[in-house]
């Protein structure tokens, strides 16, 4: 059976309509210079919409090719994000072999484990074994200058770029409850992953849009002057609504719409946490973006910071919900 069941096609249709209308809005606004919208903001939005089209096309292609392709795709994204992270983080020559292990051994291994669905192993491999290995390997290299700081930098990079992000494709390996008509929900994992990416990207955009309204209360001016309380609350409320409207696409059909709404709120809040964390690192290093993969878009890490933080929490919430739903169905 294909993963492109009716629900998945509907979800893709919704996204296509959203993207197409965003493109049309950009076109129309660009033709009218008297619309009163800041040209710089419009240009940012224009680039953002183009980035979403690319992201959508790549994701759709990976889904079409199957779960292995999707895991490989996320593995490559992680690998690239980690490169960007290490590039802006100063390390010493003594860290060379540790960095080699981190990017060429632990990163691919994590995605192999995710692809094989070994939850017991991939959920601890990095935070336990890799985190013990990193300081030990640095010590073995014999350079003790700023030891803890260097170990923490490499650990943070591995945690955020690889471990966290790997929980997005891990959604494909979850055992989902059967559909209401008794059929196996083969497209459920893909829809969950799609839902996560869609909501986290929307929450980014909506938080930004809401923070443009005139009465601004900036949350942490020293870290990021564009993130306001209006943006956080307005953006979270908006994506919660959108998530509730899209509840039919998620496997949370047993709990009706409020579960999807709650999950969307969680994704939005985690996205905010990811955004300010990565902003703080960029501030400290004095860089504006993490990379220049596509001119004008910053790096990969600038686009996926919210997804990195949202993925593991969304994964665990979904997993707990599945366990609870399983117990409930056995009781009743």
């Amino acid at each position, binding site marked *: 059976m294909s993963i492109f069941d009716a629900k998945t096609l509907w979800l893709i249709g919704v996204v296509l309509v959203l993207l197409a209308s965003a493109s049309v809005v950009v076109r129309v606004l660009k033709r009218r210079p008297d619309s009163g919208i800041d040209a710089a903001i419009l240009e940012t939005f224009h680039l953002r919409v183009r980035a979403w089209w690319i992201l959508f096309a790549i994701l759709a292609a990976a889904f079409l090719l199957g779960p292995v392709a999707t895991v490989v795709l996320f593995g490559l994204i992680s690998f690239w994000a980690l*490169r960007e992270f*290490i590039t802006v983080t100063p*390390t010493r020559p003594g860290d060379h072999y540790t960095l080699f292990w981190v990017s060429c051994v632990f990163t691919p291994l994590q995605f192999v484990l995710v692809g094989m669905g070994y939850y017991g192993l991939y959920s601890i491999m990095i935070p336990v074994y890799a985190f013990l290995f990193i300081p030990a390997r640095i010590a073995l290299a014999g350079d003790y200058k700023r030891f803890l700081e260097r170990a923490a930098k490499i650990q943070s990079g591995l945690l955020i770029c690889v471990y966290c992000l790997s929980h997005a494709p891990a959604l494909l390996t979850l055992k989902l409850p059967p559909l209401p008509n008794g059929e196996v929900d083969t497209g459920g994992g893909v829809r969950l992953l799609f839902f996560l990416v869609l909501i986290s990207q929307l929450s980014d955009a909506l938080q930004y849009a809401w923070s443009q309204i005139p009465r601004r209360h900036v949350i942490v001016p020293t870290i990021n002057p564009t993130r306001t309380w209006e943006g956080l609350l307005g953006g979270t409320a908006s994506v919660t609504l959108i998530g509730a409207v899209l509840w039919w696409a998620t496997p949370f059909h047993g709990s009706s719409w409020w579960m999807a709404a709650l999950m969307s709120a969680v994704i939005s809040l985690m996205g905010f946490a990811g955004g300010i964390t990565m902003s703080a690192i960029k501030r400290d290093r004095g860089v504006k973006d993490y990379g220049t993969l596509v001119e004008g878009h910053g790096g990969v890490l600038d686009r996926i910071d919210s997804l990195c933080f949202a993925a593991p929490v969304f994964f665990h919430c979904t997993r707990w919900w599945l366990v609870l739903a399983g117990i409930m169905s056995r009781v009743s």
Partner: protein
Amino acid sequence: MDTNLARNLLALLARFVSGASVRWIDSQPDTCQRVYFANHTSHLDAIVIWSALPQVVRMLTRPVAAKDYWSKGPVRRYLANQLFNAILIDREEIKVHQSPVDLMIREIGHKYSLIVFPEGGRSEGREVGEFKSGLYYLCKKRPDLELIPVHLDNMNRILPRGEVLPVPMLSCISFGPPMWLEAGEIKTDFLARARDAVRRLKELD
């Protein structure tokens, strides 16, 4: 394997490992005879500059490399001789009648461009070292060659001195505006000017 195919694959691999973003600052790729001169921090430098050039230019560009490193073992020999068509310089015995500059001029004829590292060896730190005089003598004999300053950023972290395995990080290659040896310019002035051209690219990061 077909040499051209192998060359393109190697260029692709080098681009991937170095994660290089390439910038041409007040400069354009061209097939005219040029000398690309760059700061030197890693064994990968020559391959990375070579792979950053457009294919037509790449085919006409030959890196100048150390014989003691690139003629060791069959893999390095194949890479240097067959793939990037390197001009290997014997650093141990530089003869009077067989000076490296004469060898380079003979090898490039009126067709090829060169990639050189005027610091002589790989510099340890992030600072661009003093330039050796080879670049000056090369230009004195062939003042028609266009000189293109190149700055490599972060390569020393991807493959530092004495390491074998590269760590895939991201790097940045900047090609600067062309310059020439001015008529009557003395050696030290010219070398300082060339070095400043590379350092200026570094500051643009």
